[in-house]
C-alpha cells in the first residue's frame, strides 16, 4: 500500500484534473470560450499516479490531450488556464495554447500537437540529464494511436541503445481519433512492442491509481538508478471522445456507458472511503480546496488580457523582433 500522503496527493490530483476538465467543458459549452479541447477525462489516474512519483525537477513531455499531465506535473493553475484561454498571463503568453503548454519551472518541457513527435525530444531531455549526471527522469505521454507512427519506433530504439532515463507512457484509451485500437494496431497490447527493443514493458490498469503508482514507481526507480528506459502501457478510456464537440457515433454506446459507470475517480474515492484511508469530511475538504483553486485560476484567466500585438513578432529568435 502506498503511503497515506501519496493516496492523498493522488486524490487531490485526480480531483483537480476532473474539476478543471468540467469547468473547461462548461466554458466551451456556454460559448464564452472558443478553443480546440481534448478532454483527458477517464485518463486522470494515470497522470495522478506519475505525479505522485515524480520530482519537480523531473521532465515531462506531453501532447494536445495534456491537461491531466500538466496539472499532475505541477504547472500552476492560473498560468495554465490563462494559456488555454490565450491570455498574456499564460505559461506561454497565449502564443502556444492548450496544445503547446510549456512550463520549465515545473518540469513541463514540451507539449506537442503532432502525434508521436514528443518521444524523440524526450530522449534528448533524458540524454541531457544522463550527461549532467543528475538523476532526473523524463516521462513522455502519448496515445495508443501514436504507437503506430515512425517516431515511436525510432525513439524507443535509441532510448534502449543509449540506456536513457526515460519512461514512455502509452495512455491506451482504445481509440486514435475515431479509429479503434484493433483496426489500426497489430499488437494485442502496445507493451509487447518493448520486445522489439529489449526494453522492460508493462501493461497496467490505468484506471487504478494504486496499480499505476506501483508501475510508475518501478519505472522511475529503474530510470533514476541508471537502469534505462521502460515502456508503460496504461489501459484507460476517453469519456468525451477525441475532441470537444465529437459526435462519438463511432464509439459503441454500451462500451462508453460501461466505462463511465466505472468512472475511475469515483471508484478511487469510494476505495479511499471503504478502505478507511480517509473520512468523507477529509475528502470533501480536499475537494473544496481544489474547487476554490480552480475557481480562482479560471477567474484569473478570464480576467487576463490577451497578448499585445507586439507579441506576434517576438520569440521567433532570441531577443529579436521580426519585422512586420
Amino acid at each position, binding site marked *: 500500500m502506498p503511503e497515506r500522503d501519496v493516496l492523498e496527493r493522488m486524490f487531490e490530483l485526480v480531483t483537480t484534473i476532473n474539476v478543471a476538465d468540467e469547468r473547461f467543458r462548461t466554458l466551451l459549452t456556454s460559448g464564452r470560450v472558443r478553443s480546440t479541447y481534448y478532454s483527458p477525462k477517464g485518463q486522470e489516474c494515470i497522470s495522478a499516479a506519475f505525479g505522485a512519483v515524480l520530482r519537480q525537477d523531473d521532465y515531462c513531455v506531453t501532447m494536445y490531450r495534456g491537461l491531466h499531465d500538466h496539472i499532475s506535473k505541477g504547472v500552476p493553475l492560473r498560468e495554465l488556464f490563462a494559456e488555454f484561454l490565450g491570455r498574456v498571463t499564460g505559461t506561454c503568453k497565449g502564443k502556444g495554447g492548450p496544445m503547446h503548454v510549456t512550463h520549465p519551472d515545473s518540469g513541463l518541457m514540451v507539449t506537442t*500537437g503532432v502525434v508521436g513527435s514528443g518521444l524523440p525530444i524526450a530522449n534528448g531531455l533524458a540524454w541531457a540529464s544522463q550527461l549532467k549526471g543528475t538523476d532526473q527522469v523524463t516521462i513522455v505521454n502519448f496515445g495508443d494511436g501514436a504507437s*503506430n507512427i515512425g517516431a515511436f519506433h525510432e525513439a524507443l530504439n535509441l532510448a534502449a541503445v543509449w540506456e536513457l532515463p526515460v519512461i514512455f507512457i502509452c495512455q491506451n484509451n482504445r481509440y486514435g*481519433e*475515431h479509429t479503434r485500437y484493433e483496426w489500426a494496431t497489430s499488437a494485442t497490447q502496445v507493451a509487447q512492442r518493448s520486445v522489439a527493443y529489449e526494453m522492460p514493458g508493462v501493461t497496467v490498469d490505468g484506471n487504478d491509481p494504486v496499480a499505476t503508482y506501483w508501475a510508475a514507481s518501478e519505472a522511475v526507480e529503474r530510470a533514476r538508478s541508471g537502469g534505462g528506459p521502460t515502456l508503460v502501457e496504461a489501459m484507460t478510456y476517453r469519456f468525451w471522445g477525441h475532441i470537444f464537440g465529437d459526435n462519438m457515433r463511432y464509439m459503441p454506446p454500451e462500451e462508453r456507458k460501461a466505462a463511465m459507470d466505472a468512472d475511475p475517480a469515483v471508484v478511487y474515492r469510494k476505495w479511499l472511503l471503504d478502505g478507511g484511508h480517509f473520512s468523507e469530511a477529509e475528502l470533501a475538504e480536499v475537494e473544496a480546496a481544489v474547487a476554490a483553486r480552480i475557481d480562482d485560476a479560471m477567474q484569473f484567466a478570464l480576467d487576463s488580457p490577451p*497578448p499585445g500585438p507586439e507579441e506576434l513578432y517576438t520569440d*521567433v529568435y532570441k531577443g529579436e523582433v521580426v519585422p512586420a
Partner: protein
Amino acid sequence: MSGDPTNRKLTTAQAIHEALDLAMDRDPTVLLLGEDVDDPSGGGVFHISEGLSTKHGEHRVRSTPIAEQAIVGAAIGAAIGGFRPVAELMFMDFFAVAMDQISNHAAKLRYMSGGQTGVPITIRTAAGAGMQFGAQHSEMLESWVTHIPGLKVVVASNPADAKGLLMSAIFDDDPVVTIEPTLNYWVSGPVPEGEYTVPIGKANVARAGSDVTVITYGREVSFALQAAEQVAAEGISAEVIDLRSLVPMDEEAILGSVGRTKRAVIAHQAVRRGGLGAEISCLINEHFFGELQSPVVRVAGPNVPIPYAAELESMFVVDANDIAEGIRRAAK
C-alpha cells in the same frame, strides 16, 4: 468549367465528398485511404468521406493507422500497381512526417524510372490558420510542394472548384497535392451536379477589373473579392485572379491581366519569405520589366510561427483589409 451550373448549394466539404463519390463510381481503380476515413471510424474528422466505405466497400475506402509515411507509401505502391489512390493527410503541417514519400518518391519515381512508372495519386490535405489550432495545425505549406518538380499542386477557393479540381487531380496521371483551406469546408456555394472537371493549370478571373491585378488562391480569393469591393468605392477597379492551380501555373492568365493593368498585388496566407508570391512576382517582373506602373506588392503572412491567441492569429492571417491596403499601394 464544363458541367451545368445549378443553384444547388453545397459546402466545400460536401462538394469534395461528391467528387470522391463520383470518381469511385466512375472508376473502380479509385481508392481512398487515410486516418478515420471509413464509416466505422466516422468517415473522417471532417466527415468528408462519410458513407463512402459503406457504398464502395471497405477494401476501397480504408482507414489507416496514424502513420503518414505508410499512408503515402501505400498510395504510391498501389498507384504503380495500377490504381488511383486518394490519400488524406489530415493537416498540411503533417506533410513534415511524410515528406520523404512525397518528395523523394511520389514526385521523382516517373523521372528516376525513365518514364516507366507514374504515380497517379492525389494527396488531400486541410491547411490554413483561423481556427486557433496553434502553430502545428495551421500552416499553408504550398512553398514546400511547389518547389518539388514532379508534383502538381491545386487549391480551390470555392465548393464548385473544389469538386472539379479534385476530379481532375484524381484522374491526372501524376501526383497532385490538393490543399484544402480548412475554414472553407463549411463555406457553401453553388455546385453543379454530376461529373465535371476544372482543368489543372487554368486560372479563373474571379472579378474583372482594369486598374490593378490581384493574384491569389484558396481562402484569400474571397478576401480579395471583398477588398476589391472596398477599393471600388474609392474608384479603384481591381481584377482578381484565382489561380486554382499553383503547379502548373497559368502564366498566360497572369501576364494577360497584368499586361493590361500594369499593377499587381499577390496575396497569400503563407509567410512572406520564400512564399509562392515571390515566384509570381518574379514572373511578372521578368516579363514586364520597365512596363509596370508600380512595384509588385506581396501581401503575405509575417515571418513568424502561427500564434494561438485569437488576437494574434487574426493579425497573422491575411484578410480583406490587408489586401485592400496592398491594392491601394499598388494603385498609387
